[in-house]
């Protein structure tokens, strides 16, 4: 049970990979707490463990040792199927490379998480239309990813992440492949989701301007938390 006030709490969190005979430890005994409703950026040089941490918080990678609580769920103790069910309801993930399914339209991509929820087709349609409206892409619902710009693809990915209304949004370099204008639009959206809708957001970024949108910047290096700074994002 997560007995603290933090929404996300890592204790002695360690992740070890094996590559042949080589042992790689991207995270070592990491202790960390993130408050509910906060907008946090994870910063650090390549190999500092920030993406690994994001993957562990997303439940798409497994913890080697330590504990990782998200709300009342200890992800370190959950099976693959339990993690999948948890992801379907509790988290939305936004990737740097958008990760849309190329053979599905924008509408169908956004609808994907809702296929796992008990709701009618009409309810799904209402949710998808609302999500697309939030990212200002209602007029692109029938477009395939190849027919969209990079910024539009990322906004579809954001719509997919929020459509099931999860309390936690995770973004891995969401503006890394975008031009300045599109990046600003995506960051505006994330800020709005945090401020207006109260979503907890954890964003990995190299970009100081993007990190500035968060309230707190957590600096990682060699798998450990170096420092936490106030980043300046308004709440």
């Amino acid at each position, binding site marked *: 049970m997560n007995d603290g006030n933090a929404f996300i709490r890592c204790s002695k969190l360690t992740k070890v990979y094996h590559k042949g005979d080589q042992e790689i430890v991207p995270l070592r005994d990491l202790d960390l707490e993130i408050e509910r409703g906060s907008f946090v950026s994870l910063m650090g040089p390549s190999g500092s463990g920030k993406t690994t941490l994001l993957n562990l918080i997303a439940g*798409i990678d497994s913890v080697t040792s330590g504990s990782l609580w998200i709300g009342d769920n200890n992800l370190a103790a959950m099976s693959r199927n339990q993690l*999948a069910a948890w992801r379907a309801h509790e988290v939305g993930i936004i990737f740097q490379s958008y990760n849309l*399914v190329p*053979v599905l339209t924008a509408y169908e991509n956004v609808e994907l998480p809702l296929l796992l929820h008990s709701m009618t087709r009409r309810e799904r349609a209402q949710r998808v239309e609302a999500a697309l409206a939030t990212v200002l892409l209602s007029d692109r619902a029938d477009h395939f990813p190849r027919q969209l710009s990079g910024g539009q693809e990322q906004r579809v990915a954001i719509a997919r992440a929020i459509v099931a209304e999860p309390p936690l949004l995770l973004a891995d370099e969401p503006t890394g492949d975008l031009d300045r204008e599109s990046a600003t639009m995506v960051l505006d959206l994330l800020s709005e989701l945090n401020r207006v809708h109260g979503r907890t957001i954890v964003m990995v970024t190299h970009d100081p301007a993007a990190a500035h949108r968060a309230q707190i910047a957590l600096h990682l290096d060699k798998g450990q938390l170096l420092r936490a700074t106030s980043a300046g994002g308004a709440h």
Partner: protein
Amino acid sequence: MIFWRVAALSLRMLSRNRLRGALAVLGIAVATFLLSAERAVHRGVSEATNASQGDTRLIVYRANRFCPFTSKIPERYVDDLLKIEGVKSAIPMQINVSNCRASLDVVVFRGVRAVDAKAVLAHRLRVLDGSFDAFLSRGNGALVGSALAARRGLKVGDNFTSAGVSVTVGGIVESDGPQDRNACYVQLPFLQSAMGGVQGGDVTQFEVEVHDATRIHEVARAIDAHFAPDRAPTSTRPEKAFVARAAEDLVAIAAFAGWLGIGALIAVFALVANAIVLSLESRTREIAILQSVGFHGGLVAWSVVVESLALALAGSILGASAAYFTLFFGQFGLGAEGVSVEFQSSISISLLSIVAACVVGILAGFVPALSAARRSIVEGMRGA
């Protein structure tokens, strides 16, 4: 409900990768065509050669002869045959074939007396077009079996020549027996004359009906015993045993064709497995995306199995339908030594082929499905 939604999603994604699916479907269609064709040959051989309890027909052949051109029995034996206990009717029959060896298009002429045509054949042959009278009113009139007529495109009034015999089609007839459906009945004196024989001379065989099916072997033995001392001793067998004996080569071919059927199923397995494995290799990221939004391993495996089943179902329906209509309209059959084995299309064979291909298709997708279900999401994202 979730499984149905995921199945619909899987089919939608497959339908938008048409090239990948089309090639696999085409291969599966060819394999299922072969499987259906093999089953049709097998069924045709079984129907022509497998005895059943109700069989009442015997074929009286010349002993130690195995070809219609060497089997010669005096026509006058008919009177003795009718006196043997258990015999209901006996038809002397002259056989002439366009090709003695195994062939896909053999014309078998069966010369019968007019009296037998009226008394016996009229009861077992159903006239589809023309009439018995048209057949009997001309010396070279012929009743053509439905399969032969379809194969050769013959209609009432047509003239055709085969094996040096020219006839005019007086009727097209249907029958429950494959030998009748593939035969061309003509009048006995006409055929004897056309083959250089004389009226009332020798015939190739007698077709004997017995009163009681349970005594068929007893009557066969009585016939052979009766003619044993004569100048032309006989060898009498139930019709289907006679066909099996005469068409040994065809039975052997059908047995070999069974291996083709097994090969066709293996081909379906390989094609589906190959299509699915290639598909999964190219869709590593797609699967990781599905997992990242909450699809658990079972749903991923299910979507792969649905894709396998869809490929197998589409291919097998295409192949089985093509085989059905090809055999239905082509009326193919193998003939040898004057007997015929049809390649019979049927709905049951088509359904069996489709079910077999689908089962094999599901099995082929099973291992890739499990593999996809166990993939690491992080590896999948990186592997794209």
